[in-house]
């Protein structure tokens, strides 16, 4: 499999060509530094993202509270994570760091609140 991608490790934005052979071996070309190779390899094998979203809130000074996955999760798990977050309804107050969902989308990663929302 071959993928073209822009490296995001620095403003250079090198255009990478990443090839994964049938035996799993990954080759990165087009990079100008070591970071490009690491990035290309990761994006090819298991791209990871921190998901940031909103959880609905009852009784708060605002109707929503921002949240994020505490660590990056596999990109493929994003839709399921978003669905689980959207299904939540929490009660104010929420404080930064409070766990909103434990083990989101079976990733082993928690979703935590990122704002302090006081009760109304």
């Amino acid at each position: 499999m071959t993928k073209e991608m822009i490296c995001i490790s620095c403003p250079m934005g090198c255009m990478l060509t990443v090839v994964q052979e049938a035996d799993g071996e990954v080759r990165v070309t087009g990079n100008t530094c070591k970071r490009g190779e690491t990035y290309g390899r990761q994006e090819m094998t298991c791209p990871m993202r921190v998901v940031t979203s909103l959880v609905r809130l009852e009784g708060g000074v605002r109707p929503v509270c921002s949240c994020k996955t505490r660590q990056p999760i596999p990109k493929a798990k994003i839709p399921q994570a978003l669905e689980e977050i959207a299904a939540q309804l929490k009660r104010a107050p929420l404080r930064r760091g409070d766990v909103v969902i434990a083990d989101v989308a079976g990733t082993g990663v928690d979703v935590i609140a990122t704002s302090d929302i006081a009760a109304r």
Partner: protein
Amino acid sequence: MNRKADVVVIGGGPAGLAAALQADAAGASVLVLERDKEPGGILQQCIHNGFGLHYFGEELTGPEYAGRFIDRVKQTGIEILTDTMVLEFTADRRVLAVSAEHGLLEIEAGAIVLAMGCRERTRGALSIPGTRPAGVFTAGCAQRLTNMEGYMPGRQVVILGSGDIGLIMARRMTWEGAKVMAVCELMPYSSGLNRNIVQCLVDNDIPLKFNHTVVRIHGRERVEAVTISEVDVKTKRPIPGTEETIPCDTLLLSVGLLPENELSIAAGVEMDSVTSGAVVDEERQTSIPGVFACGNVLHVHDLVDNVSHEAELAGRSAAAFAKHPAPAARAHRVIAEGGVRYAVPQMLSDKAEGKIDLYFRVGDVYRGAALLVKSGERTLLRRKKPIMTPGEMEKVTVDVTGLTDDVHLSIETEG
């Protein structure tokens, strides 16, 4: 009500909070005036992550970055008045403000820090032809509605401008269930970060159309479609025959930020026509003695980390001035030329010495060029850069001890 404070900070966003903390640490009494209901500024609506890598050494979301500063402020004697709008300040450092709770406030300040931030360019600044339906938002306005007020601004979206807020909102709206049809960018490159182009657009299969603009908005009550067109790279005029009409109910504008300097201009602060911010010296002092500026009201930054650093400098300078009001004389200019669009600070005072950070932006994309900093015949610095782009603010550190001449920044391309 009449009040006094050593340092009055106008604006309680990231710049204002960082300036207040440093002024407080230097022993000044500090009063922060914030027009919103809470401090934290625009960071409160920037719920995505990527803030703080330089300042905190970890990636935070906007509210977390703001929250850390707010927590620190709470441990000090700094007073923040929210819901308080500054109406004017004067050259003799009197600040007039108004709030529902306190009525009219007249504050005598030892020093003033301007930290009002910036606002978005709107449709009016672009003159897009067409009707005037609902559904045209600036990206930041849509961001606030979505992330703080809990409203969804639309379901089918076209975004004009590929600034970072537009890119971030493309992902945000997609993740909230909307369909983002396209992002149009007038220039042949994006002013947004690569990271945002990849993680917001590419990840979500949203097309980014360079050399494209919106030429017409359709719809009576609500946006029904927009017509986009390719533009000539040089003249930026639409190329006839390239029009494409995209059905949508929402148009987001991410077409630039403008420092919010009405107060500064009214007070007579000397302005830089390129940055639309004040002309400052290395202490971030404006042309009015005892009035300092920092953050996006001074020049629009890409990274809040840089705002915090700059604001800390302004806060320290303001506290020092409040203690010993000794105006610094302006000794040398810092001149941006030859590919460098602007530099901050624009001035060096007669007290400037040692190593000083110069922040600048280039006017075009340069690969393999060098930045040259000269003063008279003396070369202060020649730094080769693999790439410089208009979207990324650059910083260099130069030693300005014993300068006898103005400082010139320019780009040296290899011939």
